[in-house]
């Protein structure tokens, strides 16, 4: 899991050129319940690409998250629309566990506007 410090939000400036467009695409995938993207919420731990195959490490905010299936489908559907991506593999990762430290500054703003306190 190189390139992503899991105790901090994603640093968009240091993303590898190969996967940066995929991160951008994932930034369009919104959490099903609140208006914040999966990337800004910090659920995406890593994105790797080998030619047409993409692999995503994904976590959830809670083990009983009601949106697990939902989020997986949304990720798959969005990434398959990227050029030359033909397969998407999603790994559910529980370690390290998600914490709110992973939320980006933009995500914090979005949550504040929505009325979620942190």
């Amino acid at each position, binding site marked *: 899991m190189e390139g992503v410090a899991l105790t901090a939000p994603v640093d968009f400036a240091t993303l590898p050129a190969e996967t940066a467009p995929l991160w951008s695409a994932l930034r369009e995938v919104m959490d099903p319940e609140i208006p914040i993207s999966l990337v800004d919420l910090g659920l995406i731990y890593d994105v790797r690409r080998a030619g047409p195959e993409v692999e995503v490490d994904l976590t959830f905010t809670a083990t009983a998250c*009601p*949106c697990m*299936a*939902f989020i997986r489908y949304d990720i798959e559907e969005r990434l398959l629309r990227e050029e030359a991506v033909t397969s998407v593999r999603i790994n559910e990762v529980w370690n390290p566990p998600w914490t709110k430290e992973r939320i980006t500054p933009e995500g914090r703003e979005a949550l504040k506007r929505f009325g979620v306190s942190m």
Partner: protein
Amino acid sequence: MAQYTEQELKEKVQNGFVVEYPHEMTEGYRKALIVQLLVQADTELVSAPAYFGAARDAPSTNTMVSATAIIQDELAHANIAYRLLEDLGLDKEELVYGRQPHEFKHPYGFDHPLENWAELVVANGLYDRAGITLLSDVYHNTSYGPLKRALVKVDQEETFHLRHGEMWMKRLSAAGGEAREKIQSAVDWMFPMAIEWFGLPDGMKRHSGQLEYRLKGMTNDELRQTWMKSTVPLCEGIGVEVPAHWDEQKQEFVLDYPFPCQYDEDEKRWLFDEGEISWETVFERWKGRGPKNREFIEAIQEGRQFRRMMEAA
């Protein structure tokens, strides 16, 4: 003694006055608000047993968790509306546990069995959308302050239910075969059900206290159009047929079947061939309630006995 006359209050709310307390209401306002809140509360409540029947057909544990999260939301929304009714002097316990099944005020459409996952997700896509259409109109227009504030949370959660419905309708339609057919069959009986839910056409509606008291902003026909404006393109976009289309000349959606018309409860099928019926006949059918009315309400009311057992233990 009311603070305002009926006419004074109607004028005040049309000019933006927000009612906060029972003593600011007239008898007419209070009655209209109670009916509105009862319909809202009962609809949210009865959607829980209706959805639960179909949630048991969820394709995986994770999807079942999504469905039960939706059911839990609906129960919380019902609680919000019953709680608001308590401020108006009604008793929540009595409203939930003390009424006969036929006395509940949810739409007839919720008295029908949802029998598989496809029917559940179409209910999310069509019925929850009808709920959002009605409630977001209330949210934007209501003159009753406590309801407006309560609806912020309700609207956010209903949007999740709607997205759940849309996502699954798309997936199952794209899968083709039997999955697709099930979505089409569900839409076939649920689309006209939702259309009917919005009630009498404006031309026949004598007078609406809810509009005069500014408890809502749109007429029945406007709400029906708003619902179709998003439902018809959604269905057409995934290759599911609906009995309605956009009319260029009229600049509105028009139905491709006689409205209103009769429904065969056993066959779960609308009898388009038998032509238009009167609204009196529709009201009779609604009054008789649908086939699952008793079972759904009993499923909810059983909870009281269980709770009493727990309390006694």
